């Protein structure tokens, strides 16, 4: 049964339509990448999935309940969100940031307990951030900070992890580090993962289900081999691409087909 299900959802900001008639089922333990050109509605779809926006038509269901009717703290115990860039004006340490992940489990009369400390310890171990505990968050490198933010999300002990561009601004090794971590959490802990991602090749390599948005609608959906095909990608992004097979059974590499190179040859 689908843990998150999107049923005929449309959404727009100030009369401008962003998503139209999206239907989508995400099963428990899925690892889904949302792809699409800039402005295709990737981030908006994530916002609808976590209930921070309400659809103008249709509904999003979490375990069969309308997501907008689930009380905030309860929702935050089920769904954790890693946003694109976290800026913290205060000098919080990495551990203090991860501890914020316990917020939905705490209450007026329920303070920080040993189980919260355990959840924080575990989240920091999984993300290999224990050594960063006392460092101030904005003094960390991009990759370290991203791991801390993911640790905060894990401290929420969610069933679903939503990520918006988790590899944004990271170098190639840090990209692999973050995506390996996410894949491991998915495979070993059964965490459902949905990530909006820009890089088609990273998506093809690390996710087993891709969802390609174009003009606010789903253009293609399925395993990488069915979605990452030249004609589909060209239609979505509106430019020529070239597919380079890897030969090891993994999805082909998508490259932009440069017109300049052909012209250079002609010269």
């Amino acid at each position: 049964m689908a843990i998150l299900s999107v049923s005929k959802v449309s959404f727009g900001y100030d009369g401008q339509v962003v998503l139209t008639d999206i239907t989508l089922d995400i099963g428990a333990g899925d690892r889904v990448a949302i792809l699409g050109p800039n402005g295709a509605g990737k981030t908006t779809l994530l916002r609808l999935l976590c209930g921070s926006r309400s659809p103008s038509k249709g509904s999003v269901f979490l375990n069969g309940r309308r997501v907008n009717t689930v009380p905030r703290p309860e929702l935050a115990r089920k769904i954790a969100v890693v946003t694109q860039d976290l800026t913290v004006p205060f000098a919080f340490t990495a551990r203090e940031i991860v501890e914020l992940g316990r917020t939905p489990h705490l209450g007026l009369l329920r303070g920080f307990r040993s189980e919260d400390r355990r959840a924080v310890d575990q989240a920091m171990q999984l993300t290999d951030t224990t050594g960063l505990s006392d460092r101030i968050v904005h003094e960390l490198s991009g990759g370290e900070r991203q791991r801390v933010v993911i640790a905060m999300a894990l401290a929420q002990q969610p069933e679903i992890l939503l990520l918006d561009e988790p590899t944004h601004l990271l170098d190639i090794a840090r990209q692999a580090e973050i995506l390996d971590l996410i894949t491991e959490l998915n495979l070993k802990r059964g965490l459902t993962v949905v990530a909006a991602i820009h890089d088609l090749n990273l998506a093809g390599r690390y996710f087993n289900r891709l969802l390609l948005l174009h003009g606010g609608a789903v253009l293609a959906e399925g395993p990488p081999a069915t979605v990452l095909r030249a004609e589909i990608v060209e239609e979505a992004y509106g430019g020529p691409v070239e597919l380079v097979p890897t030969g090891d059974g993994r999805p082909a590499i998508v490259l932009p087909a440069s017109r300049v190179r052909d012209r250079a040859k002609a010269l």
Partner: protein
Amino acid sequence: MRSLTQVSIWSKYNHVSEWPPALRFRAGMGLLGVLVVASVVLASGVGAVHVPAREIAGMLLNRTGLFHLSQSWPQSDETIIFRIRLPRVLAAAIVGAALSVAGVLFQGLLRNPLADPYVIGTSGGAAFGASLGAVLFSHFSILGFGAIPALAFLGAMGTMALVFRFSRVGGRTPVITLLLVGFAVSVVLGYTVSFLLIVNERFELNTRVIYAWLLGGIWIEHWSQLGLIALLVAAGTAGALMLPRGLNALALGEESAQHLGIRVERQKTVVILVGSLLTAAAVSAGGLIGFVGLIVPHFLRLLFGPDHVRLLPLAALGGAAFLVTADMLARVVMPPNELPVGILTAFVGGPAFLLLLRRTNREYRF
């Protein structure tokens, strides 16, 4: 490795920097608690008639009913302490605590280091109310308060309601809008006060009253006045102490706070209400005392980190100790004149804060 800020500040006391934050917090609370009591006793002793701290301690211990020390001091000293000095000194403590806690609330809400208790225009409203009180109702009195404090309180709360109402857009209160509306309303009211001060001459009233009020000073004279202010500040502080987790989450931005399960708009409304109640109570007893609500929270953040769970109680004690000391100095530095305490808080707090800022060898993030 400890965080850089804390290392450099505590560098001379390296063993302290190695303490776990929880232990450092408890030590800080203990130390500030002692400072509050010590400054209250010390401040009660100074004035035209000097009463030694030992005698004051004796009087206070006897009043608890648990001690029966023999009275080695003149009865007149006891009258001075309990009738005149203690209400005022305790009022300074309460006003300092209120301003400092309100400062933490507004800095956390607005994620802005320049925010202080007056940032959303409560100062302008209070000043307007106070001036109106001085100009129109100079002989009015309610619950032991004259028109100035009563109208200052109402002016502050009324302005908060007005600013909040104006900043609402489609069920939300964007903090930038809140800041701008607060600023605009504050400027308009500020110049209205200037206008009242000018036309005031026609009523042949003493402009010094308003001027002194604008600079800040503790005008509590009776226990009954103190009781009412204490009640308001106690309620506000208790409210504030329920908000730290929400403020911590809000530090990450409103969207992230929502993802952590915070009902963001409700949280913001409560913070504004509690912060304004504390500010209004403080200005009605102390006028526009500047700097306390700005400097004390920053000072404590540099020493103990930004976690609001620890910062709020530390700020209550720190603000109390700071203002009691400043108010004492205001009474004694230029005898027989009394300086407005706002001048003292700037003179004492400013350099101390600059020194501390210099010792953090890094760009300041609060």
